[in-house]
């Protein structure tokens, strides 16, 4: 995270084991959470 602007990046790996479809994705830290939508595709 860049201190002055707060600009941030996170890298994650799409999990195995969930059926394909649209999922709410929660990014959580100690202060709160942010939501986004993510679609898991068929392998």
């Amino acid at each position, binding site marked *: *995270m*860049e*201190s*002055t*602007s*707060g*600009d*941030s*990046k*996170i*890298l*994650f*790996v*799409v*999990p*195995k*084991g*969930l059926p394909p479809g649209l*999922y*709410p*994705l*929660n*990014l*959580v*830290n*100690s*202060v*709160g*959470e*942010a*939501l*986004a*939508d*993510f*679609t*898991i*595709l*068929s*392998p």
Partner: protein
Amino acid sequence: MLGGFCTSESAQFLLDPEEGTFGPELEVVGFDLGSKKGQVSVGEVALKVSEWLADSIVGSLGEALAEDVYDLTVIPKEPRGILPITGQEFFAVKPPEVVSLSSSSGKPLEEITISGRFFGSKKGKVLFEYESKGIMKL
């Protein structure tokens, strides 16, 4: 008003940045803050001070505060007898914000980058919400 310029009879300062989350460095810029290391706090939480000079103090919030706007208090050690200086509503603690994903879809084991603001310097969690036997899980 968030941030601003705070003065007392013998010391003045401003804060950069004026909003953020836990972990990253904050810099108090001013003058007559004294050359001996004193204390700085955001709300009730003391900053971990890494550098204290007469015209700047660098420190970081090692503890997560709840989302809110907090006072900043500087307690210089000198000149002798100086009172604490408090800037009211000086620093806003912000929750994470997602701006974009490198892709809004992906196959299992693909890597996706989330870009945004205020993720913090400690590793958080990325959770998928799903329903199992009628119960929502993360």
